[in-house]
């Protein structure tokens, strides 16, 4: 279980997270929604220790993440970054197999390459992209390579930062299904950030809405539509008027 208690983070005078409380049970899929720039990406980076919170505690299975051994801690995670963050000096397959080519999960090159190609297939990419460089791919293809890299070592906990942005509707559907599969079949814990409401419904067990630096609403996905929270209903219906100021 991942538990955040009163997590705060500011960048100078920009108070991004102002006391986030959130629990994510093992083996469930939580989707985080919220306006652009509300700090969703920062939240995931806080959990991974890429951004150090100013206050509050984050625990994984009741152990403070700041005190955990970094290598064992990170070996349990996979992360898809919003901008894919592929290493542009490495070929696509070397990106996907990065973890499998070095460190504790190292295995023979041919085997790592095979796994990479299989993961690429799962995100809808043909084997011939394996030997290309990331710069030769379209944005949506890069995103899917990033996704393949995040799941390559079959981690227990996976974070997806906007997995379907930049994808066509069919491919978005494939990716939604894949994420769902990873949670239900492999028992992984997933946290996904998305702006795409059809993704939310396809992926989520629970939904958390971040607004003004706090979790404004949290609940099972089935209650999303019936929620009488004015923030949630404005957000999911995409209305310009409501408590969330659209024009600042």
């Amino acid at each position, binding site marked *: 279980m991942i538990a955040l208690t009163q997590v705060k983070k500011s960048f100078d005078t920009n108070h991004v997270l102002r006391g986030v409380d959130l629990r994510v049970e093992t083996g469930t899929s939580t989707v985080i929604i919220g306006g652009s720039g509300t700090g969703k990406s920062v939240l995931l980076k806080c959990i*991974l220790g*890429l951004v150090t919170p100013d206050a509050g505690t984050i625990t994984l299975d009741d152990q403070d993440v700041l005190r955990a051994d970094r290598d064992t801690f*990170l070996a349990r995670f*996979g*992360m898809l970054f919003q*901008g894919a*963050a592929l290493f542009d000096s490495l070929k696509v397959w070397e990106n996907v197999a990065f*973890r499998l080519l070095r*460190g504790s999960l190292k295995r023979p090159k041919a085997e790592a390459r095979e796994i990479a190609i299989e993961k690429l297939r799962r995100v809808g990419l043909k084997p011939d992209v394996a030997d290309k460089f990331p710069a030769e791919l379209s944005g949506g293809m890069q995103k899917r390579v990033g996704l393949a890299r995040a799941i390559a070592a079959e981690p227990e906990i996976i974070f997806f930062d906007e997995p379907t942005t930049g994808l066509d509707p069919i491919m978005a559907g494939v990716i939604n299904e894949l994420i769902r599969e990873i949670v239900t079949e492999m028992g992984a814990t997933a946290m996904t950030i998305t702006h795409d409401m059809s993704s939310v419904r396809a992926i989520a067990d629970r939904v958390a809405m971040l607004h003004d630096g706090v979790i404004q609403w949290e609940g099972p996905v089935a209650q999303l539509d019936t929620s009488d929270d004015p923030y949630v209903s404005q957000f999911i219906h995409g209305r310009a008027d409501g408590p969330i100021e659209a024009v600042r």
Partner: protein
Amino acid sequence: MSPAALLAALGRTVLSILAGIGRVTLYALDALSHIVRPPFYGREFGHALLTVGWLSLPVVGLTALFTGGALALQIYAGGARFNAEAVVPQIVAIGMVRELGPVLVGLMIAARVTSSIAAEIATMKVTEQIDALVTLSTHPMKYLTVPRVLAALIVVPMLVAVGDVIGIFGGYAVATQTLGFNPATYLKNTADFLEPFDIISSLIKGAAFGFIAALMGCYFGMRSGRGAQGVGRATKGSVQAAAILILAANFVLTGVFFSA
């Protein structure tokens, strides 16, 4: 500005410079401590050897060649004022090996290698590639900094040696072709005059400058701000810092080696 405000501004500047020196020193010590701890990334190291060393050869060679040639012309013209034209081989040799070889190679490496390391790592930083590296259980210090710093530490002395030889050859070519020196005598004078320690000091300087150049590229790259502007600033800062630190280190090392 009131005197108090002036003092305060001065104090802030001094403090920020001291803090910067402290940060660079800590970064350097951290990098050195990672050199001796596994894992070691051989492929990245090989790649760094290639880009820092082999691909720098043309620019190092040309710089040294022209400098050696110009040095011969200057010493000849200057020496003629007191009938000392004959010292050209000796002064070219000592000037190239002790000072100009290491310094010019160091500065060329700062221009060529520091800038490209800083721009590459800063771009990785702003496109979240460094974050991705961390989440893939790979230490950026080990994967990015150590291979580059170690490669520069090993390969820049070699470049300096090559630069020294080519610089002396530049002087030799000018002296024998246009100034009427006898080729055999020129080479003999050069060889007789240079002491082993001249060459050792040249190589030590090369190692120090290589270390500084690669370290500054990594340090500024890792501290890059956001966006294209951040990358630009990191690159500019890294080259400035590397050049100044190389010249300062050269002054200190020359003092240590030759002012006995």
